[in-house]
């Protein structure tokens, strides 16, 4: 079958010296990172500016300095619709009371592709079907989104993002409210897609297991960037997260795994 996933395969995302100010306060300062056809995890304590950085990528916020480049082009130089055809986002604040069915919700992913007068084209329908299959929500297609569990709704949102046929995917804390099985399942799915993905995560072990590279933010700046093994050192964890940690190897997967202590047992 013709593989939309190949066509959607990762564009190069370049965040170049981006700073954002809100109400006079500088939230993030001179952030630089790149991603291309891989999964980059963005981690950091609360308030470090992760969501703010993501918002600059899907054009919710405009940086006061620096540029966000998708395939070498400033996202603010494209129109909003064109940018939405390149970049899709799954955000945290989804209204829980959506009056849409799953199919209708996923179909909104085609908005950036549509000509104005909206009868869906065959291409639209194919994209929606593929997206639902990729996110394993086809079985729910006729159901109201509001009747699904948190994990299922996240997958629907992901399907919607995939329906945009993006080449860059931005996920803001996609594993919140999910149980363990669904957390692993979602991230495994994301890894399987070849879309350039920037994902914020709370759980450093998930980042270590599923991200090709991680970027650690602290107080609005990049504290460290690289492969998880190199980045997640006890010093960094102590300095940035304020915890005592040790790195071990996960016996089931062979991946880096962090274990913590609050220091009261030392």
């Amino acid at each position, binding site marked *: 079958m013709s593989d939309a996933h190949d066509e959607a395969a990762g564009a190069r995302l370049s965040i170049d010296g981006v700073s954002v100010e809100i109400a006079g306060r500088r939230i993030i300062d001179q952030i630089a990172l790149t991603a291309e056809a891989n999964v980059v995890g963005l981690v950091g304590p609360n308030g470090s500016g992760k969501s703010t950085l993501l918002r600059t990528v*899907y*054009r*919710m916020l405009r940086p006061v300095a620096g540029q966000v480049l998708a395939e070498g082009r400033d996202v603010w130089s494209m*129109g*909003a*619709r*064109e*940018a*939405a*055809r390149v*970049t*899709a*986002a799954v*955000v945290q*604040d*989804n*209204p829980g009371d*959506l*009056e*849409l*069915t799953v*199919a*209708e*919700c996923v*179909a*909104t*992913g*085609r*908005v*950036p592709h*549509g000509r*104005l*007068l*909206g*009868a*869906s084209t065959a291409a639209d*329908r194919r994209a*929606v*079907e*593929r997206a*639902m*299959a990729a996110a394993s929500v*086809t079985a729910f*297609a*006729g*159901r*109201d989104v509001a*009747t699904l569990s948190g994990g299922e709704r996240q997958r629907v*949102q992901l399907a*919607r993002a995939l329906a*945009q046929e993006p080449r860059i995917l*931005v996920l803001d804390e996609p594993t919140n409210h999910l149980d363990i099985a669904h957390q692993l399942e979602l991230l495994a799915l994301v890894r399987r897609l070849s879309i350039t993905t920037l994902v914020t995560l709370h759980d450093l072990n998930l980042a270590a297991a599923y991200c090709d590279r991680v970027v650690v933010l602290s107080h609005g700046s990049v504290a460290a960037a690289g492969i998880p093994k190199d980045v997640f050192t006890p010093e960094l964890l102590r300095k940035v997260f304020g915890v005592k940690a040790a790195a071990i190897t996960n016996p089931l997967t062979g991946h880096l795994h962090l274990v913590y202590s609050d220091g009261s047992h030392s």
Partner: protein
Amino acid sequence: MTAQAAAVVTPARRPKTVIAVLSLACLAAVVLSVAVGSVSIAPTTVISVIADHVLPWHPGTSATAVQAEIVWEFRLPRAMLGLVVGASLAVAGAVLQAVVRNPLADPFVFGVSSGASVAAVAVLTVASGALAAVSVPVAAFAGALATTLAVFFLAQRRGRVTPNRLVLAGVAMSYLLSSVTSYLVLRASTPGGGVSEVLSWLSGSLAAADWGDLGVPSLVLIVATVGLVLLARILNAFLTGDETAASLGVDVGRARLVLFAITSLLVGVVVAVSGAIGFVGLMVPHAVRMVVGSDHQWVLPASALAGGLLLVVVDIGARLILAPSEVPVGLLTAVIGAPFFLWLLRRSGRGEA
């Protein structure tokens, strides 16, 4: 792809069928509305009057002058106005519910109707009578427009207008202006005529309809609905939340303003002509969504047809229940519409596991 996936995702035939059925029902309702009334006229006579007007060779009619006047000058424009007003209110309601993402939003959520009412009541209590027939619609429209602008201005914060602030400002404005209206009524010292007209206007009525009333509202309805259907995708995007909509490439702030402007115009024009008729704008979109889904390319035209149909049918009741007296149609829309809506609610279990 599984057959199941393909079947679910292709646009259902149902929306098109629904629209076809609603169109026929509207036609039937108009025909019925013209055929019945507090003065009974034989159906064949009714048809002959219409034929005489409409057919280019004017076959002539056996109707008396009074009957011809009743059918052509009173009933037909009234039925057409019912269609236009009902359609406008339902479309405006559907759009507003999507844009503020609040299922309780109705066309009057920005204080449009209370603004129009204040202006109309001011004119009616100061200079009642047929003079009002000229300046009441103009005053009502001006009041509606002024209130909408005020609500927008009040809901702004740092140049942005969020749905919640808009609804709150609109509700507060409604309360304020309603009090002013009540005060004006209290101050009007003429019992009988002056107050009766005010009450009739406040309840919403199609009874004053004549051909002259149809021009502007019809034009606005057609242009607005076509425009809104073209923007259907954006309306769909609104349903997913502001941030997601923005990530889909929608300029949320600007789109919201444009949509508000269109609906305010639609509602203002209608309220100027018929007063504030409640229920239609609130409930018709919900009922329509239960049947055709949430895709606005179907919701908008279906709402227009269903809203027009509801109002024409209810108006028939308004004219017959206390004949030769009339009940203002606004009093009846909820009485007739609500039970039907509740029935639909019970029947629909759309997508619930």
